[in-house]
């Protein structure tokens, strides 16, 4: 009895979940990093709330981007090191499906967790509650898109010794449009202006990346795993 692609993908997602919950510290580290980075800004700039509110979208987005990147490094690395990635690529399932499943699981464990934690950080940065829906939506779209871009970067750098700096070097320039639209959507929501335009751009980027990036990431893995 052969196993269908969707069944195999759900198996991979469950595997990632189980692995993550066996190692909760690795799950929490990027979130703590997110908190710490946001704390740096009031300490280095000014604790004044009005100033913070002006800086908040940028601070929030830069911190989210950096902490997501931190967790993306582990996307394929662990599996490549212990040889289980080889087993996955020989599992008679399309590599693209495996990449999609792993990336979705990764986003659920890192990006979604970051989105859920963002109101806490937002409150500390004096972002009004009224701007929360836009902020949450933009972060959800942005982190998901970043996960796909990161999957390409992680696939390209998986076998390399100094992979983590290179991963940032590769992924951050690609992620700049996300930062622009995400921060601007949040900024406009704080100012009480319409932020639909920026959100639509983010959504378009997300759909576009979701469609193409899995293939690029699978191709990247094929290159580096050989």
């Amino acid at each position, binding site marked *: 009895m052969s196993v269908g692609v969707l069944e195999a993908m759900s198996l991979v997602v469950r595997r990632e979940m189980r*692995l993550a919950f066996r190692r909760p510290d690795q799950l929490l580290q990027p979130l703590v990093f997110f908190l710490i980075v946001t704390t740096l800004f009031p300490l280095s700039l000014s604790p004044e709330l009005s100033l913070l509110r002006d800086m908040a979208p940028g601070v929030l987005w830069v911190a989210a981007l950096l902490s997501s990147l931190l967790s993306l490094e582990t996307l394929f690395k662990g599996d490549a090191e212990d*040889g289980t990635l080889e087993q*996955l690529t020989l599992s008679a399932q399309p590599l693209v499906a495996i990449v999609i499943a792993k990336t979705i699981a990764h986003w659920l464990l890192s990006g979604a967790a970051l989105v859920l934690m963002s109101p806490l950080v937002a409150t500390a940065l004096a972002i009004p509650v009224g701007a929360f829906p836009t902020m949450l939506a933009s972060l959800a779209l942005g982190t998901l898109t970043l996960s796909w871009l990161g999957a390409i970067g992680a696939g390209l750098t998986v076998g390399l010794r100094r992979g983590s700096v290179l991963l940032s070097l590769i992924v951050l320039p690609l992620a700049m449009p996300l930062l622009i639209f995400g921060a601007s959507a949040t900024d406009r929501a704080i100012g009480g202006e319409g932020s639909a335009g920026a959100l639509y751009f983010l959504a378009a980027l997300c759909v576009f990346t979701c469609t193409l990036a899995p293939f690029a990431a699978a191709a990247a893995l094929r290159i580096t795993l050989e």
Partner: protein
Amino acid sequence: MNGAAKMPEPAALLTAEKIHVWRGERHVLRGVSLKVESGRLLHLFGPNGTGKTTLLRVIAGLLRPEQGRVCWDGRPIGEAREQYQSAMAYASHEAALKADLTALENLRYAVGMKRRASETELRAALEETGVGGCADLPARVLSAGQKRRVAMARVLAMRASLWLLDEPYANLDTSGGALVSRLLEEHLDRGGLALVIAHHALELGRSIDRLELSP
């Protein structure tokens, strides 16, 4: 094991023709050809650095050779990827286990990608390789020999007709070595095919083919 009930298709055939692989400047494999038929085992041996593992990886489809091709039942493995992979079980020289998952979970997530295997079946496979008692222990706490046995259980549970084993005897004690030989014999009796890298002479109760790679 009841897995023996399922016979692979008759007259399965693995061939590799004139495989060339370069690693940077090094011409690692220089036109290696081989053939394995149902019920036959090919023992790959030779000094370190002669490309045994590279050849096995090429045959597994993990590495694309610069020249030459590998065929399964007459079709290049790149074209018949899915059929080939479902018919093949590959065990590298590392055990390929997730340290944080139990032996049983490791089997479930690896074997489950290829075929639906019940928990009883997976436990039976672990029992068969002598690590039934470790089924619910995280792989982290297992010894190297036990990990190797779990990896063998994974090969067994995949019920593949082609086994590609890289140093299956490494880290195993005498009883473990005998176990691997017995499993191989049973596999060949079922009409399976095997390609095995081993440094010492394989002593199976049957004739085997040998291929020496020289530097």
